[in-house]
């Protein structure tokens, strides 16, 4: 096997020294972090704490306003991403940035193809030969000629790592690599990260999942509001202590609040819904004031069920009713009008209008009902209406006119909650309501969901996080391969019981 991965001692130390950075507001304040060879160094902190910004500065995406970047004792001056890669520093971004229409092998060497003798030609033979070795190293068994765009997301991540190795990088940063991955896919990535660490590479890592953080980290640095508030070595800090440092206050994580549950009439009723290939005959019902969970693996058909119910996909059989009204073939516009709303799973693609102001984002689902006369919208009144709802959702923002992309993930999500509450729903489907939301803001979103249910909203929560379902739900359906395979109520809902059902084991 051809192996270009460096092994053994003599690794690279990369140091952030007193880094300052501001984007109109300060994001990083005099941050010192040292990335040691043979270690996985994890940055934790709430969204907006400055973790991603730090890694972007270290990999040349942003220039720091102050401070120094020191690679093996040498201070790096001006740094572009290409220069950083040449010096062996690679950032694996949150969403892989591969060229979907080029082959795996071409992607591997993109911008860094091995040169021929005079540096004028591409040494294709060497590129080909090393490719399979590298893919093997990262545990990716695919045909190098396959188009990168056809790889599942998890494999694209691995390909990103292989690319870093192909370019001889010795410092690899991972910016929340696991957020789009299933647990199993993430395990593959972790195995690779451990392997790279044991080979003496220098790894930096950002994650919101505590299991991962505790499992992987040799060293943890906690950031809050752009400053370092804690430094820990493996096994020297407990989870509650870590969380307290992150949010600056104590927080109970999986507290199940016993809600007064006297569910009302059936609001949403789904009967034997079929939408091949993912939805193969599912029946569920949700009552007023009830929080019902939908557990299942990624790809089990949870999201597809929701999209079919909401009219984004057409069912081939079955029936959907809201308050007794048939909405089986209704599109999203009619579903919304009949009181059914859907908070989409993929916030960036299907949720936010990134460059659009908060108010317009909040009212996008009720354009037909906005205040106005003779067909002209009263934009002042609209902004006030949106503002009241954003305040109610506890959105932290400066003005209504700022683009939603300028908010943290948690606040973006709250704006989307405002969007759907403005539609006066009778039943809401929340798909991964806390994805990409930091721990502090998660609790706020749980509060919103519970408040809405308390006001009589029939609520369906789809989540990959079992703790979330245990925390919120009165009842949980388990979905496996497009069918409902079980149902749990009340105290029977535990992480173990739900997990077992969701993997089709029970």
């Amino acid at each position, binding site marked *: 096997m051809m192996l270009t991965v460096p092994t053994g001692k003599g690794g690279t130390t990369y140091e952030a020294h007193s880094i300052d950075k501001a*984007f109109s507001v300060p994001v990083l304040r005099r941050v010192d972090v040292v990335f040691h060879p043979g270690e996985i160094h994890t940055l934790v902190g709430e969204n907006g704490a400055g973790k991603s910004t730090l890694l972007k500065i270290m990999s040349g995406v*942003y220039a720091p306003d102050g401070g120094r970047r020191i690679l093996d004792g040498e201070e790096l001056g001006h740094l572009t991403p290409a220069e950083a890669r040449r010096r062996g520093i690679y950032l694996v971004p949150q969403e892989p940035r591969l060229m979907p229409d080029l082959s795996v092998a071409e992607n591997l060497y993109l911008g860094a193809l091995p040169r021929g003798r005079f540096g004028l030609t591409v040494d294709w033979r060497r590129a080909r030969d090393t490719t399979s070795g590298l893919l093997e190293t990262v545990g990716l068994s695919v045909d190098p000629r396959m188009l990168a765009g056809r790889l599942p997301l998890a494999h694209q991540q691995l390909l990103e790592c292989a690319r870093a190795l192909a370019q001889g990088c010795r410092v690899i940063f991972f910016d929340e690599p696991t957020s789009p991955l299933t647990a199993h896919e993430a395990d593959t990535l972790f195995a690779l990260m451990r392997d790279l660490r044991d080979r003496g590479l220098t790894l930096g890592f950002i994650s919101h999942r505590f299991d991962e953080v505790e499992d992987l980290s040799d060293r943890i640095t906690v950031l809050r509001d752009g400053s370092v508030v804690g430094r820990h070595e493996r096994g020297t800090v407990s989870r509650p202590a870590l969380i307290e440092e992150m949010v600056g206050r104590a927080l109970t994580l999986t507290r199940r609040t016993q809600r007064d549950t006297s569910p009302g009439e059936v609001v949403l009723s789904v009967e034997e819904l079929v939408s091949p290939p993912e939805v193969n005959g599912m029946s569920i019902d949700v009552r007023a004031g009830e929080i019902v969970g939908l557990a299942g693996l990624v790809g089990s058909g949870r999201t597809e069920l929701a999209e079919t119910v909401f*009219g*984004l996909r*057409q069912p081939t059989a079955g029936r959907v009713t809201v308050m007794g009204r048939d909405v089986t*073939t*209704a*599109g*999203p*516009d*009619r*579903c*919304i009008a009949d009181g059914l709303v*859907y908070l*989409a799973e993929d916030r960036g*693609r*299907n*949720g*936010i*209008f*990134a*460059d*659009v*102001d*908060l108010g*317009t984002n909040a009212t*996008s*689902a009720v*354009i*037909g009902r*906005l205040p*106005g006369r003779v*067909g*002209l*919208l009263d*934009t002042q009144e609209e*902004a*006030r209406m949106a*503002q009241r709802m*954003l*305040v109610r959702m*506890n*959105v*932290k*923002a*400066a*003005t*209504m*006119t*700022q683009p939603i*992309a300028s908010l943290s993930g948690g606040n973006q999500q709250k704006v989307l909650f405002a*969007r759907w509450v403005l539609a006066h729903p009778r039943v809401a489907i929340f798909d991964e309501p806390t994805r990409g939301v930091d721990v502090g803001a998660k609790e706020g979103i749980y509060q919103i969901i519970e408040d809405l249910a308390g006001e009589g909203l029939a609520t369906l929560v789809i989540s990959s996080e079992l703790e979330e379902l245990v925390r919120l739900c009165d009842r949980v359906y388990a979905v496996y391969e497009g069918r409902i395979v079980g149902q749990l109520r009340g105290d029977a809902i535990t992480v173990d019981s739900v997990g077992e059902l969701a993997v089709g084991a029970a």
Partner: protein
Amino acid sequence: MTAISLGQRRRLPAWGAILGALLVLELGYFSVTNRNFFGGGTGMLTQIELFIPTGILAMGLALVILTGNIDLSAGAIASLSSVVVGTQLESGTVIGAIVVALVVSTVIGLVNGLIVAHLGIDSLLVTLATQFIASSLAVSLAGDNPPQDFASLFLTLGRGTVAGVPVALLIFAVVAAVVALLVGRSRFGRRLVLIGHNAEAARYSGIRVARTTVGVFTVSGLIAGIAGIVLAAYFNAGRSDSGMALLLPAITCVVLGGVDIFGGKGRVGEVVVAVLLLGFLTQGLLNSGFSSLATTMVTGLLLIVALVVKIAFEVRSDPSVLASTADRLRRRFAPRRPAADHG
């Protein structure tokens, strides 16, 4: 408790201010260097008459481009409209001729919209095809003797004035005002802008993307029809080639006016300023004795300089703009599904 300010009423948009300043400079320059430029009280306004049909066309295109689409057939529709109105004038009343021309134009726009929205074919390709169809229809309808020498009542639309103001300019003003209200203050406009920003998120918000898209292309067809009528009145002839030449200058106006070619961002008011800027520039250069070749070249240069300045401004205020442009490119060229709204 959270406090979120409503935000001041929009300040003068930076890009609009730059365009406005350029316009003032331009008018100043020409009035100093070229004594004939103002040519009396109403002279300055009539300077731009030749450019008005382009400006009208740009209004429809602005709507289409705001949704992230393009309408290459707009110029050909204007040609067809000018031939249709000409042939109808030979046999019927002025009003009747205008109505027929507008109906024909609107129907072509509707067909554009239906194909783009329901078959999911890129608007670039669809309107490229309908452009050929519309322009060949115009040529065959015009025949060997294009319709000309119209009733003087009709000709006022092209060259007449009301209280010193050219009628064509008034038509442009009305079209621009309606389009500006449509984009800024109507439900239809809100939907089309959101579609331009993120069509998927629009669909998930319950916006009927297909229906709005059809509407936008239909309106673009109608506006192209209006441009064609003004053209026919200006030339006193229904020329089958007259509209095509307007297409690229009109797209230039939209882009120069700051409308993002990928959709979503842009203000109609700034497109209007860009129309005036380009219109006076073209006429001013011609009056100063430059050839139309030189004029075209200056237009190209102006466009490049303007875009460079604009991107420089955006990058400075938001370094992530380059990344977001890359994202939008990716989204733009991602495989498309038909946007058909079911239900």
